[in-house]
């Protein structure tokens, strides 16, 4: 099943989120910005970060451990994300027409993946600040023990990672949840619905986000990507499952025109070879 929400629908959803915002707590706090609230998972080869900057380039983090409800579905957190049981991956993207970010469960019966992406800008994600601003979710958790992985930055549960607040994340771009939608009042008033959603509010980093979810996979495609740093969050979205392994992949999708030129080039090479052979 593929479900894609347009930016227009996403913005309407954000309006709903704003209506829920009063249910969580933002308190005055003297918490200093510290960064390092979460650390980055490594990519294949032990890389602390990856770079995907040309068409056809890709990066992968294989056989990663996925907690069953790290992104959504844990009733004890009122459905919200739990940073310390999921994973963040830091990546640098070039100016690309489309970047596909996909999570595939090794066993769909064990793990229903979800993911979210944020634009960071000209530096890697700094990990945010624990408890920044004294935010507390409706389930009584501070950030990022519980955090808002699907709302726009600035919404409750995001200050810990937001530029100018506790982190250096510039914009939330989109999220995908392959597990069931969370029906109750969520921890931060955020939407935790099955499907893939564009949550970007500007064209500064991406023109749009598309994607889809299905049994054992969740996928987001960033369209017309601005060069810079991004961070990807992956976690499980079905508390009824056991949790399991997954592969994360990031691929710069070649443009159709590029593919055509590539095919012509290959054909020319083959023709040249056969001519030389004769």
């Amino acid at each position, binding site marked *: 099943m593929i479900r894609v929400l347009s930016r227009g629908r996403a913005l309407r959803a954000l309006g709903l989120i704003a209506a829920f915002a*009063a*249910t969580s*707590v933002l*308190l*005055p*706090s*003297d918490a200093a910005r*510290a*960064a*390092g*609230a*979460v*650390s980055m998972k*490594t*990519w294949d*080869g*032990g*890389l*602390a*970060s*990856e*770079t995907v900057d040309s068409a056809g380039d890709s990066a992968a983090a294989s*056989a990663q*451990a*996925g*907690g*069953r409800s790290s992104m959504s579905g844990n009733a*004890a957190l009122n459905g919200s994300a739990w940073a*310390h*049981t999921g994973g963040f991956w830091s990546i640098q993207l070039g100016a690309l027409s489309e970047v596909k970010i996909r999570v595939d469960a090794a066993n769909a019966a064990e*793990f229903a993946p979800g993911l979210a992406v944020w634009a960071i800008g000209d530096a890697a994600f700094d*990990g945010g*600040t*624990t*408890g920044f601003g*004294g935010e*507390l*979710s*409706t*389930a*009584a*958790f*501070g950030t990022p*023990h519980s955090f808002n992985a699907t709302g726009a930055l600035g919404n409750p549960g995001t200050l810990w990672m937001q530029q100018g607040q506790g982190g250096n994340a510039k914009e939330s771009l989109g999220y995908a949840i392959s597990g069931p939608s969370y029906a109750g009042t969520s921890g931060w008033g955020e939407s935790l619905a099955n499907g893939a959603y564009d949550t970007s509010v500007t064209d500064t980093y991406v023109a749009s986000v598309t994607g889809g979810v299905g049994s054992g996979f969740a996928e987001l495609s960033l369209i017309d990507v601005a060069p810079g740093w991004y961070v990807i969050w992956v976690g499980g979205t079905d508390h009824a*499952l*056991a*949790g*399991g*392994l997954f592969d994360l992949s990031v691929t710069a999708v070649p443009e159709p025109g590029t593919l055509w030129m590539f095919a012509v080039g290959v054909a020319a090479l083959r023709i040249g070879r056969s001519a030389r052979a004769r």
Partner: protein
Amino acid sequence: MTSSKGALRFARVVAGLLPLLVAGAAFAHFGPVPISLVGAPVPETPGLTDGPDPIVVDEAKAIALGKALFWDVNVGSDGMACASCHFHAGADRRVSNQIAPQGKHPLVHDPVFSTDAGGAARGPNARLEHGDFPFFQTDAPLNPLGNVLTSTDDVVASAGTFGGEFTSVAKHGGPDDTCERAPDSIFHVGVAGTRRVEPRNAPTVINAIFNFRNLWDGAANNVFNGSSQWGDRDPDAGVWVRTGPATVEKQRLRLLNASLASQALAPPLDDVEMSCGGRDFAALARKLACRRPLEDQEVHPDDSVLGPLARSTPAQLEQGLATNYFTLITQAFAPKYWSYEARGEFGAPAGEGALPYSQIEANFAMFFGLAIQLYEATLISDDSRFDRSAVDVDGIPTELTASERNGFQQFRVAHCGLCHIGPVFTPAAVVTNAMMVEANPQAFGSETFTISTTRNVVTRASVTGGPGILDTGFANNGVTLEEWDRGLGASDPFGHPLSFADQYLQRLAGNTAAVVDPYVEDVRPCDLDIPLALNVATPYAGFFTQAQGVIPQTQGTENCFIPVGAFLPTPAAAAAELASPTNARMLSAADGSFKIPTLRNVELTGPYMHNGSMATLEEVLEFYTRGGNFDPDAKHFGTVFPQVDLRFNETNRQDIIAFLRTLTDDRVRYERAPFDHPALHVPHGHVGNETSVELHNALDPELGSDAFLLIPAVGASGRAEPLEDFASFLAPCEICLDQQIFLEMPQDPPPAPEVCVVPEPIATAPIAIATLLWLERRRRRGGALFR
């Protein structure tokens, strides 16, 4: 791949590994960094050995008294010493007759034994084997969704006494009390009575001095009252104090940080653990005072504590000490607790014409408890490989193997270190942790995850049923269901909740009479891990706000863990919430919670958990990897949850175990000082098996013959062979017969005791009285004792 691309990738790899290489920074984000026990402060007990009027005047003698009492089988009514359940790295590694059917199930009065995983009967005198463990088994031990194959509320614990109704003791002669004994209705094989088994596994006594309270449910009060385990809760508690040449009065005693003394008073009178029912400490004193300590047990001449008092020589091991208990007590304790000469005020044993008790007998509970505590306070194991290793600037051990270092980090990543915190690897070390946090903040948290570490005796915890108030140092990890054993959620014999948490909730609701322990009044709200009340207008499900009514905390707000949490609900708001059927703000997480145990020497202290349901550390790792057995409301879901990485990464699991093994102090492993000890015969099942038991017990013809483990006396230099772990004793019995010695306890009259002067006026009394009067005159004049 082009060479330039390859070079770039190599550079990225190096860049990626750099954080791993530089001080383990890749893990530095996650929570507390385990820390050495060397130099960790032991909680002080003011007035015990210090101050102007100490109770103990000769600490070395008190420690000797405590060690003798701890290992002396004469303390029990039928051959059980304290050490009988704490002889192996401070714990119990016996495998025969160790099953308590349905444990401490509060609703079951006629418990039945469960069958083993194969469906075979498993009853009294059964011998545990590898296949019995763990007691909760699924077809996929690492997977939270495995199909349950077997699950039982039986408990692997410690065989104790045959029980019976107490009649009398003898001042001399054999070790057994006179009791009305008969085969137990539960613990018997055929017609033969077998020893009863305690309902919870025996935890190690090593490092227990650091625990704010002891026993799995915290029932050993932090405050020692001198006559029971219940601290301030016991309205009848007190000790007899000589106040003048011919006056004595019962006074309340209130020694803080003396939980081990409180604990020591429970087993010797318990008719499952050590005693016939109805015995008291005065009777025990009557039995012991004139006896030679350890009169039937060999004492090594090089025993680190008892050697100077031993009758043994380097050439010949002998039984007992060259003194008696009376003498040791009078040497160790201040005269005002034992020097009163008259009798009459202190009661008398049952029976016509029995000699009334003396002051020293009436105060024996105090002597016993304090001596045991002072001995156990010497059992600190701070010389493990982990303790010895140098650490880098981040506190990461540098002298462990690569596997052990990875295990150290995975221990943190897997959230183990959030509960097993501080130098003792438990938050139950409330005072020690609070004293260390300022100088060692990394040991209690990091930028990412910090555990509030103060002297607060409660916190607010993340549990399945919603944030709940819970005693510091306790947790429900989902190993059993709450209805199997309520643990901290139960009440004492006076009807008061065992937990500080339930007292605190009542206190918040204005019910001050419900607070029966100190420290509850001192809880500072802004140091709770999760705040309780916020000074905001908006109603909020998880917190009290102005909508219900909040008031500022009474204490100062300096260095608050959560500054915005410096508020309390108004008593009316708290009471209303507590009474509400939708209560979400005044929840208690005490039910089914147990004291978080130390992990030091953990490789030797199996079986594990309060119900002894796991035999190996591998089984423990499986348990935590799958996220526990059950999901009760009070379960700490934030620390016990399915761990997918561990499930698919056997290396990390094994490395965590490798790290845990670095916590073993070789002095414990080889029973070197201070962990050396006298010889001990430990009842270990009965001659026969679970279907047939021999009837040749000298105690009673209807009781099964005891089999014994012979634990030889060890001197300060320890034993030649290391202690083995619990699992190694689960091998089929034909292999392990050499570990099981079948014999009866000696029944021959022991050697005549030394002179005992209990019934007679003591020669030192006039001197003591004069000293007391002189001290009192000095006190009234306000003069210093020494100038």
